[in-house]
């Protein structure tokens, strides 16, 4: 357990820096606003206790919110997906469960498995995020399409990052 702390603290900081100074700065369109920082939540080990998932994702969301001037929106969406992450992992678990000592990564379970797992979490997160931001069901179709396009982008960048920098 303890040996994970420095590694995941670093991941936490890198996720925030990349999100705040790269992805938030690229203001290209409403359809380009990926929530890359979800990578942190996705990669946490299987054994992570639920309180850890919830609290780290709350803090992560709040920091992202603070930089984006959107009080609470990212925090709410991220806490929700942190809450349902164990259920989603159950849904995708192999027949005899996850092997002890592994974490949800491409190197252990393959890119198809990782993509499916990422996609489900990211889509739920993005739908929540953009509906909370709009705070109305007017323009619902636009909101849904913005959420879906951004989900795909988020998945793309998260999986890409797995091949570039967070390999182990």
């Amino acid at each position: 357990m303890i040996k994970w702390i420095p590694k995941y603290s670093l991941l936490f900081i890198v996720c925030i820096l990349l999100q705040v100074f790269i992805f938030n700065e690229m203001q290209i369109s409403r359809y380009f606003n990926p929530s890359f920082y979800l990578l942190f939540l996705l990669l946490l080990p299987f054994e992570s206790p639920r309180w850890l998932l919830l609290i780290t994702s709350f803090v992560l969301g709040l920091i992202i919110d603070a930089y984006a001037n959107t009080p609470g929106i990212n925090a709410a969406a991220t806490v929700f997906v942190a809450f349902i992450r164990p259920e989603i992992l159950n849904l995708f678990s192999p027949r005899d469960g996850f092997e002890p000592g592994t974490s949800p990564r491409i190197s252990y379970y393959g890119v198809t498995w990782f993509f499916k797992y990422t996609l489900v979490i990211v889509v739920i997160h993005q739908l929540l995020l953009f509906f909370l931001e709009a705070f109305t069901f007017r323009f619902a179709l636009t909101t849904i399409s913005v959420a879906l396009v951004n989900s795909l982008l988020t998945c793309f960048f998260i999986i890409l990052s797995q091949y570039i920098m967070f390999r182990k």
Partner: protein
Amino acid sequence: MRKLLRLLLKYYAVFLFLILEGTAIALIVSQNHYHNAVFINASTGILGYTSEKWSNLTHYFSLKKENEKLIKENLKLHRKLEEINYKDNEYVPEYITAKVVNASVFKQKNYITINIGEKHGVKKQMAVMGHTGVIGLVENTSPHYATVIPIINTRFHLSVKIKRNGYFGSLSWDGQSYQYAQLNDIPAYVDVNTGDTILTSGLSTSFPDNKLVGTVSKAKKTKNTAFWDIQIQLGTDFKQLTSVYIIKLPLSEEQKKLENSND
């Protein structure tokens, strides 16, 4: 008691989830009150600092364009100054320049952070102007930074008028495109054409009158109401903002005090 404790322990994740989610939702909802953006206020200082360091870097890339804009703006100001000199009015609005250190355009509730604050005399509700049109109002201040609520925030409303005939309306934003805003409350019998210039009305304690807001880009009469449905092309390009002006109206405090004493 013991049962309750055991229940709490068993479902602690659910309770923790509810508490954190509740806090987050409370934050979202609290920002709907105009003066209650405490969250932004508290974080303005620290975040402004890091954002400024970053934008110092990116400012270099737009320096040339910015210079051209400033030269044009200076020229305009010189002309204005002469106009004012001739009028011999003692309460001349005061301009302060500020640099944009953080801005968003693709959200529903966009904000701009600028690099001057209370120490430079910035107060809440002061008007913010760009080189080519109105930007918004100061919402929160810290000693060295301030956040601005721009036209492109769904909570922003502003009283404006049509230059050609002087009719008043209310400007708001529907959250769709950062280039367009909506003008409401113009009665259908008023003559409105596309291309008409929209100016601030002066019916506000923050904005001087006759400041450019934008031009009418689309106008149609709605079927069931007696009002126009007007789309305004905003004069300010919110995506290109790098520096802005804060306007200090010398008499606005006095006006506010007087108006408040009426209630």
